[in-house]
């Protein structure tokens, strides 16, 4: 696509791998001894860590408060060399805006790069993920010479999109996606420009949070700048420039060595999404990974076409960013995280595909295809790494989101628009030798947490009715996934709020199991308008539900208009006293449920972590209802019977395939799918 003046730059977003080594970088590396390099690498990590912690301390948004933060040091060419984060996609995406700044402004007389400058951005076309992620970077100089950049990327959330809170599920074009700011200079001479801050603040529903988050990124960057200047004073710019480059080089080499250990092969993992905005429909990401020698090739040919008026599109680099989430958290967990890792990957994204967005389409829900893709990484990754290290061939954590977004005025009369941190309480996938961790966090934000109820209630006008494990939320298996969370919000202290939800997996499971393990059950949102729950509460009624199972089953005590919604619920007004019940998915299962230790099933029964129905019908365990005493013999017999029935149902593959190919979803289910069964643009 050609580049229009003042239009988006389709060239710079391709610059994901490390830039060609400069003469200076090469010369600098020659001067570094091994021990000095180790010490330097540790120092850079400490600086990045301090930057991350400072950013988190000073920010205000939900994302910031609970750790959705990355702080990085970039080379003078814009490559990301060092990052402190649990949001690993920033390890390869944070560099694009810096490269953009270098390309467009370094020699532009009206802008230029000077000591004391600061640059801000949130356009996902450059940031890679979505408009809720916002970044700020500052150039660092040594006696007038640019030596690096430092900066922070944080999920601030609210960006003035058509829906509040930063995840817009009704956007129809990028003009509904709110503020989409390419990298711009927001400060110079160590001072933020008030006119620019006012412009940014005026674009969003909660300007205070926006400004506090910007200032938090900047404060952390300034501290990192000082630290780096101290290193420069000690070691000199040649050493510093060479050192940063060497971090990239050794990372790339290490990654190649590690990839070479995996079995060569072609790994296919089609992925399906069941929501397009707020509409239920099936679309496909067709992932094929070819692993050969020390590299991967990712091919997405056969994925569904781009959606011209729906927000489910993503830029291709967002997908590659999410590949890093799996790599840095699981496969390359023991290596440094930076864009040197991309030296192991080649990629091909088809044109006119919703995972290779272009033009004016909305990317408001880009995290959906990105996370759906990551599940493919988990599934391919487990198969690829099983031979090398079976303990790390694990099932996926929940990938389908499922969190509310809201807007309005809080109990202190202050404007607000954000999301809730409970999306960071998903279950961890089961492992080859143990169950997944219940409410482990979020696989894409592993340093984030779900916060306290009291911290949220303090300045958000909601009362939590309950927040407990959601025992029906995980995938069964030889080892079960970790449970997710269930919670209920009641708008309180104010007349009302607007609230919606984002997520997928209400019709088709968002997260499937591995090696015979079960998928995570579909999730949905329940609301009751005109609810009497507050009255029941005031009466201390035992009919008030204490967890999601009770709430979803219902006992007739709660009156009002009950509705069930897809996880991606359109933003709508709720009155004081209405109830909104929300689930957070658990982890996927590992292995055959019939191989689960029956004692573990009984232990789960005792703890209420499995339902009696699942114990009988999925795990085929026989026990005494009163005492929970296990009957081993009957269990064994029941399981043998189940296995025999499976064999009876079995048929030759050719026969199965023939029947399978006759099946076809209804037309309205696949109206966005492309051609069926092999999706391609029509």
């Amino acid at each position: 696509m050609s580049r229009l003046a003042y239009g988006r730059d389709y060239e710079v977003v391709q610059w994901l791998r490390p830039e060609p080594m400069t003469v200076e970088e090469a010369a600098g590396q020659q001067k570094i001894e091994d021990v000095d390099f180790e010490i330097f690498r540790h120092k850079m990590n400490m600086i990045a860590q301090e930057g991350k912690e400072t950013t988190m301390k000073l920010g205000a948004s939900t994302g910031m408060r609970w750790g959705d933060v990355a702080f990085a040091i970039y080379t003078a060419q814009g490559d990301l060399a060092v990052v402190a984060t649990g949001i690993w996609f920033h390890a390869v995406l944070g560099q694009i805006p810096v490269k953009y700044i270098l390309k467009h402004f370094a020699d532009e007389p009206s802008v230029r790069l000077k000591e004391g400058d600061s640059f801000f951005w949130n356009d996902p076309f450059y940031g890679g993920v979505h408009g809720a992620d916002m970044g700020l970077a500052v150039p660092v100089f040594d006696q007038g010479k640019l030596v690096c950049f430092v900066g922070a990327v944080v999920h601030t959330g609210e960006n003035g999109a058509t829906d509040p809170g930063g995840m817009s599920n009704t956007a129809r074009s990028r003009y509904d996606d709110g503020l989409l700011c390419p990298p711009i200079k927001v400060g110079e001479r160590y001072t933020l420009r008030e006119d620019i801050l006012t412009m940014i603040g005026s674009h969003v529903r909660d300007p205070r949070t926006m400004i506090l988050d910007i200032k938090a990124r900047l404060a952390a960057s300034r501290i990192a700048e000082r630290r780096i200047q101290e290193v420069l004073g000690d070691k000199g710019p040649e050493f510093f420039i060479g050192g940063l480059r060497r971090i990239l080089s050794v990372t790339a080499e290490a990654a190649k060595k590690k990839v070479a250990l995996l079995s060569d092969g072609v790994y296919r993992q089609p992925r399906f999404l069941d929501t397009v905005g707020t509409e239920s429909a099936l679309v496909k990401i067709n992932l094929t990974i070819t692993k050969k020698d020390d590299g991967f090739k990712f091919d997405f040919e056969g994925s569904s076409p781009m959606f011209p008026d729906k927000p489910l599109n993503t830029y291709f680099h967002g997908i590659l960013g999410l590949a890093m989430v799996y790599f840095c958290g699981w496969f390359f967990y023991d290596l440094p995280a930076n864009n040197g890792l991309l030296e192991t990957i080649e990629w091909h994204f088809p044109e006119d595909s919703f995972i290779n967005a272009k033009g004016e389409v909305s990317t408001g829900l880009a995290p959906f295809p990105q996370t759906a893709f990551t599940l493919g990484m988990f599934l391919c990754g487990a198969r690829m790494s099983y031979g090398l290290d079976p303990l790390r061939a694990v099932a996926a954590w929940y990938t389908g989101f499922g969190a509310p977004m809201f807007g309005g005025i809080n109990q202190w009369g202050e404007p607000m628009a954000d999301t809730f941190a409970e999306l960071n309480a998903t279950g961890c996938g089961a492992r080859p030798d143990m169950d997944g961790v219940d409410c482990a966090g979020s696989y894409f934000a592993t340093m984030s947490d779900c916060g306290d109820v009291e911290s949220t209630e303090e300045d958000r006008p909601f009362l939590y009715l309950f927040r407990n494990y959601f025992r029906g939320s995980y995938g069964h298996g030889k080892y079960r996934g970790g449970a997710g969370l269930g919670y209920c919000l009641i708008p309180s202290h104010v007349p009302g709020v607007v609230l919606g939800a984002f997520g997928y997996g209400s019709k088709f499971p968002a997260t499937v199991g591995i090696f015979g393990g079960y998928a995570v059950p579909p999730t949905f949102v329940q609301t009751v308008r005109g609810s009497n729950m507050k009255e029941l509460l005031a009466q201390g009624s035992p009919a008030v539900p204490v967890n999601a199972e009770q709430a979803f089953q219902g006992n007739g005590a709660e009156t009002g208009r009950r509705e069930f919604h897809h996880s991606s619920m359109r933003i709508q007004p709720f009155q004081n006293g209405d109830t909104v019940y929300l689930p957070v998915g658990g982890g996927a299962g590992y292995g055959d449920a019939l191989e689960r230790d029956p004692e573990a099933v009984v232990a789960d029964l005792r703890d209420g972590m499995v339902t009696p129905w699942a114990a009988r019908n999925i795990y085929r365990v026989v026990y005494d209802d009163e005492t929970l005493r296990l009957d081993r013999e009957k269990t064994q017999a029941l399981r043998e019977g189940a296995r025999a029935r499976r064999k009876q149902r079995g048929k030759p593959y050719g026969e199965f395939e023939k029947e399978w190919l006759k099946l076809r979803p209804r037309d309205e289910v696949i109206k966005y799918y492309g051609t069926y069964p092999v999706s391609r643009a029509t």
Partner: protein
Amino acid sequence: MGFNVNIDIGGTFTDFFAIRDGGDVRIAKTPSTHYDLSVGFMKGMQELARAYGLPASAFLSQTEAVHYCTTVGTNALIERTGPKLGLITTAGFEDTVFIGRARSWADGGGAEANKDLSRIQKPIPLVSRDMVVGIRERIDCFGKVVCPLRREDVIEKLQVLVDRGAMGFVVCLLWSFANPGHERMVKAIIEEEYPEDYLGSMPVTLSSDVSPKAGEYTRFTTAIVNAYIHGIMGEQLGHLVNELRDGGYKRPLLLVHNTGGMKKASRTRAVLTHNAGPVAGLHGSLTDGARYGQQNVIFTDMGGTSFDIGVITGGRLSTYDFIPVIDRWRTNIPAIEVKSIGAGGGSIAWVNEFLGGSLEVGPRSAGSMPGPACYDKGGQDPTVTDADLVLGYLNPDNYLGGKMLLDPDLSAQVIEKKIAKPLGIDVDEAALRIRRIVDAKMGQEVFSEVVVKGLDPRRFVLYACGGAGPTHACGFAPYVGVKRVITSPFSPVFGAFGAYTLPVRQVWEKSKAMKIFRWADQAYSEDAEGFNAVVHELKDVALRDLRLEGFSEDQVEFRLELEMRYGMQYNLTKVVSPHLTVYGPTEFKDICDRFTEQYSATYSPEATFPRGGINIECFYLTASVKSRLHEPEALPLRGPSPPDAARAGSRKAHWAGLGGPSETPVFVFEALEPGNTLTGPALVEARDTTYVIQPGWRFTLDPYRNGILEPAWAAVRPEEEEKR
């Protein structure tokens, strides 16, 4: 003539520091007896008595104070030997402590382990799931009851816990810090149902008593940890006190608190004893530093498995914003921060094949068992101590005063096999690299700890304590940037020394949200009454408590700290309030200005945002009673040359930059005299440590027998130093 005895229990050794009225000091070290800490404790007492030439009974009967940094509670947590507790919480929130804000698997885990996401695990809970009951009640964010508590419901749930074998109850309800009414009602019901004269009477812990602060997860865990270790501590300390009494000691046992003070054991909250030893050490460096007029001190303590770091500014212990994690439990106690990193003599060196064969040190440690290879207890990995031995710094025949013999051949073998050969270098070079990397890591961590608080480490002096502190100080100090390192003759027992210096002191806290500068109308609060009510409440509790300790109001000094934030920031910044009492907007403005001033200095002026509104979230009132310490006598200086008696020959040692081994003079610390100056390279052997004076460094024994280490560059002119 009375003795003041101070004890600090460590993982390997229990340290003792005793001082007689006249200033006569004795120190001792005994192996920690984890099966029963009182055994090592009483053995140390006997050693001290011997050191003073007294029978144990005479020594104990003449002892006027015993200050104790105990690890009884921490051990009970680690070994999970606490009682079966029942947790009573708000219905609908029974899983709160298990959910653990989702990321509790990372709390107390090492950084490396936390990166390996395939293998994460949450800690085994202190209260099992079947011992948690939810009662119907609810209080909202304004402290208003939205669901009343019903007595029948409490009794019914209580019975469930009793039937399941509860030996104590912890009551943790939402918003109880804002309105403790429901928690107190539950306690009253339990006490009515199981009065004290019943055999079934059991202790009841309320979260609003132990930790009246916002944030239910940490409030609940703080209360649970306290309840979990309370009984065991009471029992073991009771046993100890009885032994002391039987031995002749007549005064109360004082426990050191992690808040930087101490109180009678009988008036101590168990959770405040965690990590008391390092905090005592930090206070020791504050007191010692004050002799030199040092207001800004960095405290370090390098032991076998960990390296502790603490910071003092303005001549006082300051509480910085951090989350104290006890074992694997995130708490919210107002503890003084002493950070511990995994670097010590036992840290293991290894070659990272993936990263191009880079040499790394830690985070794994050989600990004390099997320990470094040279201990000859089966250690197969090269450690920092092995490197120190190979380099000739440690005397294999005089380690820990000859109590432990070291085998340098074993050290050389493991370094050769696991480091030197893979890297294609010789053993000495490998040992030098190991040492340099661990020193750099420690130094950079110290640097980071100081600067993250917005402070400039170049304006600090550094105390190098612990058995390995003087051995590595010259190595890590340059990475901190300090120009003066102080080593105490009590370095190896510095926690015990620090316990001697502590005042009677406690912190009382309470969460209360106050918007003292409002975003909505850009005006200062007028709610002086609300502010003063909290301060008065805390003051009343503090005075009542200290009166029971035997102090009068005029002996008590108060300091008010406030946790504050801009707008909706989650994390809080603690500032010392310029006012204990406020009268209206003028004082609130002063408080806001103080907050912004501190924020600006720490994070840069660009980061401040007063217009976004300023809130107070939590009040901390510290009440201290000044203690009178013996001022050590300054000994006369004897000139720079050490006496002949201090010279203990020489041995070959390797020094970076000098090429090959060089014959290095060795001195005996105890025989050195104040004023003696040694220029590196030199080695000084003391009973429990070795001073390694690297080339380019100068060691001077000062009038207090503190060893002062200064790099040659410290003598350069100030303007050059600034450039540096």
